[in-house]
């Protein structure tokens, strides 16, 4: 059934086209603001979470940095995780993969260029578990090495480039490794305690041959098969290894994820609140337009009421009008939100990988719905006012 009150509303909107259009633009802006702000926040959150959760199943064990009791005799070589502690960790970790890691900071030379970076020594099979090679292959020969993406681009490294490791010293021949692969960029958010972007990764055999410390590790990672066992495994390791005093520090990235997520979600709420201000402005303009519409049509309302139109029918007519303004605003706004949101997310986050996920796209219909609700709410009072006019007074108005 075609409702005559809907027709009347459409005609009224058309009659005052420019005014209605301007009021709708307010809603468009409000919807766009809410949707794109919401999407921006969510995309940021999703990206950070994805980066952080990459290593969430990793427990990082490092030597407790408190110096050993014998003070003067302590050296860098004694500051590490010993073979027996490693065995304790393996016992406590059960079937989970345990990866002992050597690392040190060292100078190196590529041709005539000198640099400094981290050197990691790992068992070649463990490397596959923790790192991704984007170019070339993983370690095969003893003097093969993988390099981080930052070093690779800084020194323009290619597969096959040779790197001399150690301090440049004329009198000593420095050991040489050959680049066989370049590692994927990990960014700042390394959750497994290894930051390879500015590092050279070699086999543990090569590392201990050159740097010693065969039975002393700088870090041990435990890769969990099931992330839900995180607390249990950490507790087991703590009991076993730290039974007398704290000799190792056990950490993971879960607490970091929680705190970063909650920071980001309050940030999202904050920017949504800013977006909402524009809807408040839009509400005011819709309210204004509706009040104008009522006061311009007082006599018409008087005619409607005097010939037997029910007050609720008059109310409906004005709510339809608010609904139409809201619908136009919401549809145009929803469409523009997709375009503007995509642009803003791309420009500010640098990645639109998460844009089309439901968590992100939900802000478009949500923004549209909020825009429409705001519109109808703004129309409530004007509609109520129109329906409560006294027909005699309204008829007399001119």
């Amino acid at each position, binding site marked *: *059934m075609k409702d005559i009150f809907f027709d*009347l509303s459409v005609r009224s909107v058309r009659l005052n086209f420019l005014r209605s259009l301007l009021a709708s633009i307010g809603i468009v802006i409000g919807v766009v603001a809410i949707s794109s702000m919401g999407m921006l926040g969510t995309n940021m959150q999703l990206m950070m979470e994805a980066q952080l959760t990459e290593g969430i199943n990793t427990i990082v064990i490092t030597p407790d940095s408190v110096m050993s009791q014998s003070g003067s005799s302590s050296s860098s070589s004694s500051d590490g995780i010993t073979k027996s502690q490693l065995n304790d960790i393996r016992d406590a970790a059960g079937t989970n993969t345990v990866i002992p890691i050597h690392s040190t900071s060292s100078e190196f030379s590529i041709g005539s260029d000198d640099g400094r970076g981290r050197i990691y020594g790992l068992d070649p099979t463990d490397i596959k578990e923790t790192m991704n090679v984007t170019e070339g292959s993983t370690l095969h020969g003893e003097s093969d090495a993988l390099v981080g993406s930052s070093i690779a681009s800084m020194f323009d490294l290619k597969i096959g480039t040779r790197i001399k490791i150690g301090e440049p010293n004329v009198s000593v021949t420095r050991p040489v490794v050959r680049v066989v692969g370049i590692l994927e960029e990990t960014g700042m958010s390394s959750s497994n305690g290894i930051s390879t972007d500015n590092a050279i990764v070699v086999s543990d055999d090569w590392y201990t041959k050159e740097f010693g410390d065969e039975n002393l590790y700088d870090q041990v990672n435990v890769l969990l098969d099931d992330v839900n066992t995180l607390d249990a495994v950490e507790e087991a390791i703590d009991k076993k290894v730290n039974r007398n005093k704290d000799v190792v520090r056990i950490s993971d990235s879960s607490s970091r994820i929680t705190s970063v997520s909650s920071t980001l979600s309050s940030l999202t709420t904050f920017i949504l609140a800013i977006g909402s201000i524009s809807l408040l402005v839009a509400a005011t303009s819709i309210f204004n337009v509706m009040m104008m519409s009522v006061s311009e049509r007082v006599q018409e309302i008087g005619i409607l009421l005097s010939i*037997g*139109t029910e*007050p609720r029918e008059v109310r409906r007519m004005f709510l339809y009008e608010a609904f139409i303004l809201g619908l136009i605003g919401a549809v145009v706004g929803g469409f523009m939100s997709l375009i503007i949101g995509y642009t803003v997310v791309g420009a500010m986050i640098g990645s639109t990988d998460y844009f089309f996920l439901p968590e992100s796209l939900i802000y478009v219909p949500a923004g549209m719905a909020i825009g429409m609700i705001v519109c109808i709410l703004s129309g409530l009072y004007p509609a109520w006012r129109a329906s409560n006019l006294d027909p005699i007074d309204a008829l007399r108005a001119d």
Partner: protein
Amino acid sequence: MGTTPLIQLSDVTKTYHLESGDFTALNHVSLDIGENDFIAIMGPSGSGKSTIMNQLGILDVPTSGELYIAGRDVAKMTNLERTHMRRDIIGYIFQKFYLIPLLSAYENVEYPLILKYKQRDKTGKATDLLNAVGIDEEKSSHRPSQLSGGQQQRVAIARALVNDPRILLCDEPTGNLDRKTGTQIMDILIDLHEKGKTVILVTHDPKIAEYAHRTIQLEDGRIVES
């Protein structure tokens, strides 16, 4: 003949509270109007013509006294009941026509049917009535602003008749029309009276009042001559 008149005013007073003090627009008015009466109400400005029309049109209720229309006490009805009474048993014809500007002539006539039956009209009644008052198909699609005064009043009469009201309230129906058009409109009203409608007419013009069977003269809110 039925014993109860269609409209019965007993001792009706209407007082308006103004800042300058109370103003009594109707002062203890008693009046019976029977089925198929043709009544002219006359009187100078401010004599209470409009007030009594608002009472008869169920747009207002008496301050004191009793007003029965079609056997129902107007003061005791709810707002919604009064609205339905206005829609169903009264047809209004105003001096300024008061058509709905956003609707075409046809839709203006169809409108009360939609109010009553909550759906668009499929009976063709609106078209029939428009034809009967001399508005053709082409004119029916026009908005009121595109019609002459006489045409608008014809549309307004068709609108007033569409729900088969028992009472036609005409507030200076010819007041905005030239004499020739006014006569045509009066001919339509006389015809409707002959077909059984109760016609109540407010006018300044004694010539128009001559058409009525009974003339009521108002002065300062009282009936001075009946």
